[in-house]
């Protein structure tokens, strides 16, 4: 006996139709997907590798891989998450090549608690945006995130910069949800601690 199906009212993501068309050889549909995600993929690659030329190469390679493997994309996840996963893997491979001695891996848990225990308890006043202009702020934020271990800054980038959900981040990185959560907490706390150097309220009588 056939099971009684409840009506499906779930909204279908617009990428689903584009991917289906691209699979059938519609190049305009694939180009549309490229336009939608090229900046995001580039940013993610640049965050992980910290190198613009690498990020450009990785972005090209990631889309090429996605194009070649389009038939393998089953639609169990969002197309964008699948794409980010490809870009993350390409980026990590690039990092590994660069530092031949050190292994760079996402699932290797960074044991150090250093910087994850709050030590600076000064409020940030006035707001960072009031203390620095956009260019200065971008510079401070870039330098600060570069100091984090790759596993931490990648989780932070996907969750807090690119706004992926915890589940999507886990999928893109091949990590469990609890592993993503623990890295995210430590990344946020370490960044907070390091940024306090710049943004903490200056005490009266102290040289600025």
């Amino acid at each position, binding site marked *: 006996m056939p099971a009684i199906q409840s009506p499906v009212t779930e909204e279908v993501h617009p990428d689903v139709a584009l991917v289906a068309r691209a699979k059938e050889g519609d*190049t305009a549909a*694939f*180009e549309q997907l*490229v*336009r939608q995600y*090229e*900046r995001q993929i*580039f*940013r993610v690659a*640049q*965050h992980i590798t910290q190198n*613009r030329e690498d*990020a*450009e190469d990785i*972005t*090209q*390679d990631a*889309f*090429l891989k996605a*194009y070649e493997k389009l038939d393998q994309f089953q639609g169990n996840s969002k197309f964008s998450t699948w794409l980010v996963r490809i870009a993350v893997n390409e980026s990590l491979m690039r990092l590994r090549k660069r530092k031949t001695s050190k292994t760079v891996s996402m699932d290797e848990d960074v044991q150090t608690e250093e910087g994850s225990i*709050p030590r600076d*308890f*000064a*409020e*940030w006043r006035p*707001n*960072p*945006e009031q203390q620095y202009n*956009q260019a200065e*702020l*971008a510079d401070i*934020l*870039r330098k600060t*995130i570069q100091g984090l271990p790759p596993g931490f800054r990648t989780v*932070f980038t996907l969750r*807090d*910069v690119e*706004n992926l959900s*915890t589940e999507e981040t886990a999928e893109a990185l091949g990590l469990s949800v609890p592993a993503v*959560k623990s890295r*995210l*907490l430590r990344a*946020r*706390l370490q*960044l*907070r601690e390091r*940024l*306090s150097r710049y*943004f903490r309220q200056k005490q009266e009588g102290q040289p600025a």
Partner: protein
Amino acid sequence: MNCTDLLSHLSDYFDDQLTVELREEISEHTSGCQHCRVVLNTTHQTIEVYKGTEIYEVSPGLRERLHSAIMAKCFAKK
């Protein structure tokens, strides 16, 4: 709730993953603990300042170059 408990719930707090009871425990704790109040505020500011600042700007020129390179690479063989 003590300071260590609060820290362990911090991420879930920002991601809105906590029960009403836990949120209340957190605000009760922070109303009496200056250190945790600062950590909560400044961690929130950390997330917000990263969300609000474009760290790696993609200029229109770079984007066009990148886009052409991607398309050339994908459709080179066909």
